[in-house]
């Protein structure tokens, strides 16, 4: 018997079967970026490269807008998304800043605050409300 649905975790998008099925085309494109020639081809003609991988309209729009949460909602997995982010020179703090809507400095300060012993909740509240 399959267990009943779990309580959602705030701010968390589990990469489950539904997401994996939805995101297959986008993740396949991102997986191709393990090859430097494919990264160059994407940069040379993003539209054509996305078309080759048959991204859905939702996926294409999220990639065009560099909308990280949009890509995740469209089924992208963060490990694959990180390969796309790398093409633009973005690291996981940049991606964190984009997802939380905080500045990069504020996001880094939120991480550092946890290093000083603050809970995530407190550090996050300070990031959001200053």
């Amino acid at each position, binding site marked *: 018997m399959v267990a009943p649905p779990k309580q959602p975790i705030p701010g*968390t998008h589990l*990469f489950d079967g539904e997401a994996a099925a939805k995101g297959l085309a986008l*993740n396949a494109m991102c997986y191709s970026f393990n090859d430097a020639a494919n990264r160059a081809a994407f940069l040379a003609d993003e539209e054509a490269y996305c078309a080759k991988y048959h991204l859905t309209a939702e996926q294409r729009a999220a990639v065009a807008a560099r909308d990280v949460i949009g890509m995740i909602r469209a089924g992208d*997995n963060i490990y694959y998304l990180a*390969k796309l982010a*790398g093409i633009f020179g973005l690291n996981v703090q940049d991606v964190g800043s984009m997802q*939380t809507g905080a500045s990069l400095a504020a*996001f880094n300060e939120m991480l550092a605050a*946890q290093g000083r012993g603050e809970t995530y909740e407190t*550090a996050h509240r300070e990031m959001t409300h200053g």
Partner: protein
Amino acid sequence: MAEIVGAYFTSHVPAIGGAIHKGIQQEPYWKPFFDGFPKVHEWLAEVKPTVAVVFNNDHGLNFFLDKMPTFAVGAAHEYQNADEGWGLPLYKPFKGDPGLSWHIIEQLVDDEFDITTCQTMLVDHALSIPFELAWPGVDEWPVKLVPLHINTVQHPLPSAKRALAFGRSVHRALASWGADERIVVIGTGGLSHQLDGERAGFMNSDYDRFCMDHLASDPDALTKHDVHEIVRLAGTQGVEILNWIAARGALGAGAREIHRNYHLPISNTAAATMLLDPA
């Protein structure tokens, strides 16, 4: 007969590899993490392992989502690193130990684990960084490698209970391995971190300390949370604790903690390093 000399655990954040490559281990940001390693080097020099059995997770280098095994065992003569998408310098290759790999595979299947066997397998930063940290600057690794992969990417993931049982089955194989080898068990990844979603940047030192405090003495305590609860407590990528749990199982019934270093943040991650002796 082979001897299990102990277990080594460490985080594997890609940026650690960048810090090693740039030689900035002593800079203030990095020093508290790298300060955990002189003890590791001293311990390895004492216990002198000849084979490493490593529990880790692929990050979209060897496995794509078209075929995603829950548990996979490498059985290759050699393992290579490759470009993970960032064009970084490649890590050194690893010599395999296919005899031991197949012995482990026999035991796992005998214990009713329906694994995937891989005669070719690329290994990513999850495996290379713990080696770079353990044996910095060597021309070639002083140990042969048996890599074991656990799916921590695509849910449903195996439960913590199953990961521990998987490790315990590997232990039975190691305990009955006839070759004259000294085996170090390695678990990589974690601890708490979350890269994706609006909760990106989440860490939880309370849960991390719970895991570290029970790893040696009572690893079954780590199996009381289901995977969903582990995501809640450790973050979406904190589920890499499954690698640690499996490695703890492979060490054997008794264990004694001899070293621990814990520092956050390293990148978005609460980073930890531990050593356990068999007991």
